């Protein structure tokens, strides 16, 4: 395994955040079913609600530079309670990985290869994730710049090519729904695609400089919310009332693209991009799970790094090195594989979960636990400020 001395730049991290969220944005049905033709605005209200959450992550990462979420829990809550909280985070990462893997399997089995068993599609996909992690997460993050260019380019091209099918009157009437619908959609956007960037708090120790995680996270979120607004608006003005009926509005609106008889069936391009974005997302979630598990099992706490000290960047990544710890990538991927197979019995159960409970479940880990951690760290005067005094 070549996971040593990994470093990523702030720009690459921002693009990785964009790609991580964009995979979910392309499956925008869960927002449109709530706020229908006003859904595009939820991309911005969701971003506003995300700002305090990013501030909490930034506060924790500034207090404990070079530390991952699991290590921070250990410092704040002690070795026993810290491990219990870390285990909850790991369950969250594994669940997200399984849910996204299941979504990918459903997409392939329904839209791309209907005769292929879902287990086969998921197995091949997870083998791709394992291959990616064994080659090094740094390489995947480096690739995110290219993935950003491809997915943003495809988004712009689709939006231009579908212009002749657009009917702006589908956006009306504007903002006439009950206020609680907008609250529901805003919370869903904040919790489901945006808040999942919590997984990046396991990667931020790989940034070369301390305390610089907030800017790339924020830039990635801003780019994502702009792309989300464009995707949602395109789907609404293209599909009209159909937008809240179809399961994948983005997939259906791209079907409208036809330039003469030459450029048609562009939904297959969408399918390929969606699978690649899912690969990035599940690989990052799997990495967060494996790294957290490795750190929990190793039980060794690394000292807090000094500001500006570059050498710490490789520390967290090194802890995945198979020469020092049990190799957990393959067995973790196997766990996610089986979990994704029994997580839901039908797509209706999956939709019901996403529309009703998933935002509250996600916010428990994305907002409540980090907020409590930061509060306890401040009350106990833990973190960098205290080290400097000492």
């Amino acid at each position: 395994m070549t996971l040593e001395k990994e470093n990523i730049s702030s720009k690459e991290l921002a693009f990785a955040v964009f790609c991580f969220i964009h995979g979910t944005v392309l499956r925008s049905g869960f927002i449109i079913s709530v706020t229908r033709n006003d859904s595009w605005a939820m991309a911005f209200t969701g971003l506003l609600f995300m700002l305090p959450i990013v501030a909490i992550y930034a506060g924790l990462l500034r207090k404990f530079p070079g530390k991952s979420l699991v290590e921070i829990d250990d410092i704040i809550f002690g070795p026993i309670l810290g491990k219990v909280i870390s285990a909850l985070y790991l369950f969250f990462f594994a669940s997200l990985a399984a849910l996204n893997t299941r979504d990918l399997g459903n997409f392939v089995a329904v839209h791309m290869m209907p005769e292929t068993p879902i287990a086969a599609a998921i197995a091949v996909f997870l083998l791709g994730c394992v291959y990616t992690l064994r080659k090094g997460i740094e390489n995947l993050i480096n690739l995110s710049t290219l993935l950003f260019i491809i997915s943003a380019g495809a988004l712009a091209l689709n939006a231009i090519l579908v212009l002749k099918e657009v009917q702006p009157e589908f956006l009306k009437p504007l903002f006439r729904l009950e206020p609680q619908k907008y609250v529901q959609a805003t919370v869903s956007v904040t919790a489901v695609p945006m808040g999942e960037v919590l997984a990046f708090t396991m990667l931020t120790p790989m940034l070369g400089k301390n305390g610089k995680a907030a800017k790339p996270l924020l830039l990635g979120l801003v780019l994502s919310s702009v792309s989300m607004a464009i995707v949602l608006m395109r789907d609404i003005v293209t599909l009209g009332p159909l937008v809240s009926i179809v399961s994948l509005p983005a997939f259906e609106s791209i079907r409208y693209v036809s330039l003469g008889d030459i450029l048609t069936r562009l939904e297959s391009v969408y399918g390929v991009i969606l699978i690649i974005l899912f690969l990035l997302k599940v690989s990052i979630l799997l990495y967060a799970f494996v790294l957290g598990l490795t750190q929990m099992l190793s039980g060794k706490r690394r000292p807090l790094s000094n500001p500006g000290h570059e050498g710490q960047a490789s520390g967290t990544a090194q802890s995945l090195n198979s020469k020092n710890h049990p190799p957990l990538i393959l067995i973790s991927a196997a766990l996610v594989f089986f979990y994704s197979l029994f997580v839901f019995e039908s797509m209706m159960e999956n939709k019901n979960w996403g529309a009703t409970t998933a935002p509250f479940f996600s916010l428990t880990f994305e907002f409540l636990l980090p907020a409590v951690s930061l509060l306890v760290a401040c009350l106990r005067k833990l973190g960098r400020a205290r080290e400097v005094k000492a």
Partner: protein
Amino acid sequence: MNLLLVLIAFAGIAAIDVPGMVKSKRWHDLTVYSILFLLVLVLGILVALDVKVPSPIKAIQAFYRDILHLSFKIS
């Protein structure tokens, strides 16, 4: 058939992961790894035998909806 595929897959995983730990005599790592391996193997065998494994997500959904009363209504 499914069970056979699961057993072959796990044999492959063990063949890739275990020799390195045995060679370098990392017995503690091997113990930790073996426990995880056995847990996931049991899960895999249950899924392969079509035994209905309860989904933790459904239990969480019931907990949030029925006990905490934190759940959106579907329109």
